């Protein structure tokens, strides 16, 4: 029993880091563009499908880490121009537009990739003993990649000119434009980056989940909960909340149904919304 708790807690932690990666994408898109991107989970799903496709074509899973985020950047930029730009400044319309996008992505994958869930073999295929238990090395690798990507993302945001422009645009779009910040380019890149994060999450998660067209539906609620609990637009809060949620759900799953774990998360989120609607990690002064 206690073995199972440890394994599931560790799985929860790994999964939480992947969710954090995806939720960060969701959060920057919301924070900067005021877009509630309901299709974000489907971009994650498309990431897993592309990982599968890369293996199919090249026989090399590791290439997917390079190729898929680039495709994500491109796809996201395209979607920003075609789908998001026309509904700019309307959060309500953005839900409708991205819901349509979500259906298109799901059905496109079902039509091409098929409806049958597929599995990707453990690309490392080695286990290490941790606390007397054999644990998949790939899961540790997945956690490391997720952490590295999250750190790289924050460095980009705080150490580069473009990152500073993104933060400035988020805080005050008009003033940023008046100071010469190319806001249209910022929006395209932000949506591209958010999509790339979701699809990178897809590649990382592909070998530890099943690959199928409905996968996004599973991930999206967890991402939204992380964004809400962490505080809208609060990126470190979102990442922390994602890890915490998945970790706790993992532990609960060891002695109860996964549905019970999700119920617990939802109750927790409702509590946060009632008591601290600005998120549990929000600074009290803002």
């Amino acid at each position: 029993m206690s073995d199972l708790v440890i394994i599931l807690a560790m799985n929860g932690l790994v999964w939480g880091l992947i969710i954090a990666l995806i939720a960060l994408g969701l959060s920057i898109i919301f924070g900067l563009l005021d877009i509630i991107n309901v299709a974000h989970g489907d971009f994650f799903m498309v990431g897993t499908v592309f990982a599968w496709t890369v293996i199919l074509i090249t026989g090399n899973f590791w290439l997917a880490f390079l190729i898929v985020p680039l495709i994500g950047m491109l796809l996201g930029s395209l979607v920003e121009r075609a789908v998001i730009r026309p509904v700019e400044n309307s959060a309500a319309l953005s839900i409708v537009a991205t819901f349509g996008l979500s259906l298109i992505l799901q059905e496109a994958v079902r039509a091409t990739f098929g409806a049958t869930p597929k599995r990707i073999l453990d690309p490392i295929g080695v286990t290490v003993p941790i606390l007397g238990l054999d644990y998949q090395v790939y899961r540790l690798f997945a956690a490391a990649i997720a952490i590295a990507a999250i750190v790289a993302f924050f460095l980009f945001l705080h150490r580069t000119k473009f990152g500073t422009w993104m933060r400035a645009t988020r805080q005050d779009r008009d003033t940023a434009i008046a100071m010469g910040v190319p806001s249209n380019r910022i929006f395209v890149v932000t949506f591209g980056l958010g999509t790339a994060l979701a699809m990178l999450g897809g590649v990382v998660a592909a070998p530890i989940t099943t690959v199928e067209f409905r996968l996004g539906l599973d991930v999206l609620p967890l991402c939204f909960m992380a964004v809400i609990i962490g505080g809208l637009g609060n990126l470190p809060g979102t990442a922390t909340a994602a890890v915490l949620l998945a970790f706790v759900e993992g532990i609960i799953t060891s002695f109860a149904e996964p549905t019970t774990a999700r119920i617990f998360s939802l109750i927790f989120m409702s509590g946060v919304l009632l008591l601290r609607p600005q998120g549990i990690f929000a600074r009290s002064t803002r």
Partner: protein
Amino acid sequence: MLKLEGLHTHYGKSHVLQGVDLEVRDGEAVALLGRNGVGKTTTLRSIMGLTKPSGGAVTFAGTRLDRIQPHLIAGLGLGYVPQGRRIFPNLSVLENLCIGLARPPGKAALDDIYSQFPILKERAGQAGGTLSGGEQQMLAIARCLIMKPKMLLLDEPTEGIMPKMVTTLKHKIRAVNEAGISILLVEQNFVMALALCPRIYIMEKGVICYQGTAQELHDNPDIAHRFLGVAVDNR
């Protein structure tokens, strides 16, 4: 330098600017006065392209501003100091200062700004939101000056600033103008506007209703009384 011809701007259905004509010549300091809500801030926002004009023309240094993308306007040499200063609260003072520059500034450019605004050097690493109102105003002006503008638009720079700082600000703005940078100043502080700007426009209900020199306004207190509802102290 800057010319507005028949400028119209709508906010939704309300017709805020109803044909504004205004001109600021090279090196000139001009004030735009008027009661609250007559369209002064909208005029500046329309010049910067933040509120799209629905008619008329804005020309700056030979370029039609109403025909280009708003983010390109700053690069033409037009600096904007918005009402309420609008410092990015979570960016550091240095990040705020350099926001309009594509590349990090050279040491000389930074030293030049710091010599004019020493307080910004002291606070460089602090978040912009932690500065006092007066310090934020200095920063709002400095982040335009570092881009070497030809002209500054200033929207109520003394609003909500403590009296001691107002005098300092007045000197800074005068120094900017004396360095050859044209100024269009929107102010509620009538005395300060008259002291800084030799030429005055007064707005009412979305149009310019009076233009003249500061001297004329000074000599005819009834004009100020009629359009602005202020009494001019003629000592």
